[in-house]
C-alpha cells in the first residue's frame, strides 16, 4: 500500500559551488543592493539651460538722457504754441515767441509720420521741420531703412544759406549699437566732421562703448576719443564718459513713483571748467503737474512747472532761472494749445 508523502514533488537541490549561470559568493559576504535602472529622461544629456540674450543697449547719445530729462529746461520770454493735427499722419504747429532779450519771432512747424509701423508708438519715416518769419529752416528726416538700420538727416539754414547739415546712420544689433555721423561735409574744401559711436552690452546691466570724433578743416585736423560706461540697476542708472575733452558723469535715481533725482558732474579740460548739478523731478499725476528743480555748483537755481489744464487741451509752463553769482534772473511763460 503506498504512502501520501511519496506522491509529493521532490524539492530542488541547493545550488552548489561552480554551478553554471549563478554568481558564486564566498560565505560571510552578500551582494550590494543594486538600484533599478531608471528610465531615460526626455531631455537629451549635455544640454544646459541657455542664458537670456543680452539686451540692446540703445544709442550712445542716450547714455545720459535719463539724467538730463530730470533737469528743468530754461525758457525765456512768452511762448504761445498751437498744435493742430490735420490727419493721423500730419500735424502742424504755430509758435509765437515774445522776448525782451532777443527778437520776437513766429515759427511754423510741420510733422509728418509715415505708415511703416515698426513698434508700439513707432512709425517711419518721420519728417519734422519748422521755419521762422525770416525764412530760416530747421528740418529732420528720420527713416527706418531695415529692422536694424535707421538713418537721419538734419538741415539748418539761416535765411537762404545752409549753415548746418548732417547725416547719420545707426545700426542696432542684438546686443550692440553702432552709429556713424557725417557733419557739414565739404568735398571741395576737404573739410567736415565724422563721428563714430559704438555701445556694447557686456552684461544685462553693464554697457561699454566709445566715441571718436574726427574733424578736418583746411590746414587743420584732429581727433577726440571718449570712452563710456553705463550701469543700469533696478531703480538707478550710473553713466561715466571719459575722454580727451573732459569727463561727464551722471547718476539717475528713481526714488518712487513721484520723485526722480539726477546728479551730473562735468569737467571740460579745454575750458578748464567744472560743474556739478543736482536736479529732481516731482510728478503729481492727480494734479496733472510736473515740477522740476535744479541747483548747480555755480549757484544757479532753476525751476520748471508744467501743468495740464484738464479737460481743456491746454498746457501751462512756467520757468525761472536765478544766477546768484552774476545776479541775473530769467523767467519764461508758455502756453500750449492742442
Amino acid at each position, binding site marked *: 500500500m503506498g504512502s501520501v508523502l511519496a506522491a509529493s514533488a521532490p524539492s530542488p537541490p541547493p545550488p552548489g559551488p561552480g554551478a553554471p549561470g549563478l554568481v558564486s559568493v564566498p560565505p560571510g559576504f552578500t551582494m550590494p543592493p543594486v538600484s533599478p535602472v531608471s528610465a531615460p529622461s526626455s531631455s537629451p544629456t549635455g544640454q544646459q539651460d541657455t542664458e537670456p540674450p543680452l539686451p540692446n543697449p540703445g544709442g550712445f547719445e542716450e547714455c545720459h538722457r535719463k539724467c538730463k530729462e530730470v533737469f528743468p529746461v530754461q525758457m525765456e520770454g512768452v511762448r504761445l504754441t498751437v498744435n493742430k493735427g490735420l490727419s493721423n499722419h500730419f500735424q502742424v504747429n504755430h509758435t509765437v515767441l515774445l522776448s525782451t532779450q532777443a527778437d520776437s519771432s513766429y515759427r511754423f512747424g510741420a510733422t509728418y509720420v509715415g505708415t511703416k509701423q515698426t513698434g508700439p508708438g513707432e512709425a517711419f519715416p518721420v519728417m519734422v521741420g519748422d521755419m521762422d518769419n525770416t525764412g530760416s529752416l530747421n528740418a529732420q528726416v528720420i527713416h527706418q531703412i531695415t529692422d536694424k538700420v535707421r538713418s537721419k538727416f538734419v538741415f539748418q539754414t539761416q535765411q537762404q544759406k545752409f549753415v548746418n547739415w548732417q547725416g547719420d546712420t545707426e545700426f542696432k544689433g542684438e546686443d550692440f549699437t553702432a552709429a556713424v555721423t557725417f557733419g557739414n561735409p565739404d568735398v571741395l574744401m576737404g573739410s567736415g566732421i565724422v563721428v563714430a559711436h559704438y555701445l556694447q552690452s557686456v552684461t544685462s546691466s553693464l554697457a561699454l562703448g566709445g566715441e571718436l570724433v574726427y574733424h578736418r578743416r583746411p590746414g587743420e585736423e584732429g581727433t577726440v576719443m571718449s570712452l563710456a560706461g553705463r550701469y543700469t540697476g533696478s531703480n538707478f542708472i550710473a553713466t561715466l564718459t571719459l575722454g580727451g575733452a573732459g569727463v561727464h558723469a551722471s547718476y539717475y*535715481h528713481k526714488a518712487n513713483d513721484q520723485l526722480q533725482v539726477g*546728479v551730473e558732474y562735468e*569737467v571740460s579740460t579745454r575750458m578748464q571748467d567744472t560743474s556739478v548739478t543736482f536736479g529732481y523731478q516731482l510728478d503729481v499725476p492727480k494734479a496733472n503737474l510736473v515740477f522740476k528743480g535744479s541747483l548747480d555748483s555755480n549757484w544757479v537755481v532753476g525751476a520748471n512747472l508744467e501743468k495740464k489744464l484738464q479737460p481743456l487741451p491746454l498746457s501751462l509752463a512756467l520757468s525761472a532761472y536765478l544766477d546768484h553769482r552774476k545776479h541775473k534772473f530769467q523767467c519764461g511763460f508758455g502756453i500750449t494749445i492742442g
Partner: protein
Amino acid sequence: MSGKKSEGKSGGVTGWISSACRFAADRNDFRRNLLVNLGLFAAGVWVARNLSDFDLMSPQPVT
C-alpha cells in the same frame, strides 16, 4: 641748532597749512574746483540713493 631745526619744521608745517588754505580758497584754481565738485557729486549721489523711502504723497501723521 635745535632752534633752527624746530624753526624749519614749524615753518614747513605752517607753509603747508597756508598753501592748503590758499588752495582751498582759490576759486579760480581748476584742480581745486575739480576736487571740490567731485566731492559735491559724491554727496549728491549719496543723497539721491537715500531718497528711496521718501514719499511725498503719503499721508502725514496727525499731530
